[in-house]
């Protein structure tokens, strides 16, 4: 069966194409095989029980290579590969690692946080973002990895990256590595903290794209260290449009403009515009989903008021509608991390998210109705939806 990842290809699959969910958690990974109707799900796992899996992804180009970013709490990080849908796994021969520096001040990769396949025309190219912030590339399908571009050691970028004390609770991260589907030379990536950056020369140089983005009150917005993009997605149906869930709101960018437009102000005041994930529609660039969390006072990072809900915009961010049918109405204090919400390519689009409390939820009708398809898993870090490329 040839498979491809959900957000990589906008083309609608056949009605009988089955969905496979790749679920990465704090204590291992699971594969959930859906039936044609997306009603029943067969659990395959745990894989890597006890290991921290930050992300698991399928290569949309060959439809068979799985990569999993792993770290056992007490051992160093690595990346595992499978070419038989997890029946067997083999460790990368050379996982992402910073350059060795003789003065003892070199950095150490704590974990690989984000995996991204390269351009469709560059088979076997993969990118990885790490914590602390680093950008890495593989040209052999994830077997060996090397630092990519100059940013890992560039003094200006190192300043923007800040230190571990400046980062998120699990460490500062490179994420949202996006390759323009029209141009192998054109890429984006983001740093929490450190801002959003773009290259048009295949990584030889990067330029920040920060106009219009807000920072926490009292900080200097001209200093990229203080910018904290949480998740950025490019619209497959319009690669000139990007959406961003930021620490300080929701934004849209329409290239060639380099100024982000704040589209979070129309969210209900009692819910706010803070969250981790950002999901885009595979065929409609005006439609996107967010999953708000409580970003007030001490930043509880829970569902606002204990009432979880996704929100959708159908008009590129001018308005938002609440989508909570089927979800708990009260006393549900979980949230959804930035890689833990995704869409498939079916019509209507299937949406999927995993919670910090270990529940896996889905909607087969673009968020109108939600169903819990698994519970009692470890804290979920990432969910990816894969659909059969052809029936």
């Amino acid at each position, binding site marked *: 069966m040839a498979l491809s990842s959900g957000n990589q290809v906008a083309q609608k699959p056949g009605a009988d194409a089955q969905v496979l969910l790749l679920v990465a958690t704090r204590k291992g990974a699971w594969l959930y095989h859906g039936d044609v109707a997306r009603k029943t799900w067969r659990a395959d796992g745990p894989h890597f029980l006890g290991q921290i899996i930050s992300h698991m992804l399928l290569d949309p180009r060959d439809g068979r290579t799985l990569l999993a970013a792993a770290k*056992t*709490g*007490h*051992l*160093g990080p*690595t990346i595992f590969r499978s070419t038989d849908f997890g029946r067997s796994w083999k*460790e*990368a*021969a050379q*996982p992402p*690692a*910073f*350059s*060795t*520096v003789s003065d*003892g001040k*070199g*950095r*150490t*990769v704590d974990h690989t946080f984000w995996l991204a396949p390269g351009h469709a025309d560059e088979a076997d190219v993969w990118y990885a973002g790490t914590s602390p912030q680093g950008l890495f590339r593989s040209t052999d399908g994830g077997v060996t990895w090397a630092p990519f571009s100059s940013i890992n050691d560039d003094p200006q970028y190192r300043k923007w990256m800040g230190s571990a004390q400046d980062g998120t609770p699990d460490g500062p991260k490179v994420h949202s590595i996006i390759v323009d589907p029209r141009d192998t030379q054109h890429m984006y990536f983001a740093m929490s903290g450190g801002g959003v950056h773009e290259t048009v020369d295949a990584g030889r140089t990067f330029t920040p794209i920060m106009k219009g983005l807000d920072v926490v009150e009292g900080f200097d917005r001209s200093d990229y260290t203080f910018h904290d993009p949480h998740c950025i997605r490019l619209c497959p149906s319009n690669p000139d449009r990007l959406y961003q869930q930021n620490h300080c709101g929701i934004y849209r960018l329409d290239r060639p403009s380099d100024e982000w437009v704040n589209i979070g102000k129309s969210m209900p005041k009692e819910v706010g515009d803070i969250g981790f994930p950002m999901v885009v529609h595979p065929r409609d660039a005006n439609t996107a989903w967010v999953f708000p969390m409580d970003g007030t006072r001490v930043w509880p990072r829970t569902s606002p008021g204990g009432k979880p809900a996704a929100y959708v915009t159908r008009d590129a961010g001018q308005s938002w509608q609440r989508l909570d049918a089927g979800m708990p109405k009260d006393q549900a204090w979980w949230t959804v991390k930035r890689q833990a919400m995704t869409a498939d390519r079916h019509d209507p689009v299937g949406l999927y998210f995993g919670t910090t409390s270990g529940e896996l939820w889905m909607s087969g009708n673009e968020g109108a109705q939600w169903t819990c398809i698994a519970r009692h898993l470890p804290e979920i870090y990432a969910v990816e939806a894969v659909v059969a490329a052809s029936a």
Partner: protein
Amino acid sequence: MKVLIPSALRSYTEQGEAEARGATIADVLVDLDRLYPGIRFRMIDEQEKIRPHIRFFVDGEQVRDLAHPLSATGELIIVQALSGG
């Protein structure tokens, strides 16, 4: 020399003991990695430092210097400390 492998690393060796050669701990870890590719990086980071929860004992004494000399008849014990939940 005999090397005792902690449970967390037995996915590489598939047993609790391994035989590896080398005049120092660093040499033995290189030999272990030749035998079990990937195992060294799980213990030693890219700056050649011992990872925080890994400890080495040579003939019963904890050793923090990777250049510590070893005897062919000695025993290296690799210990993985546990913390957190």
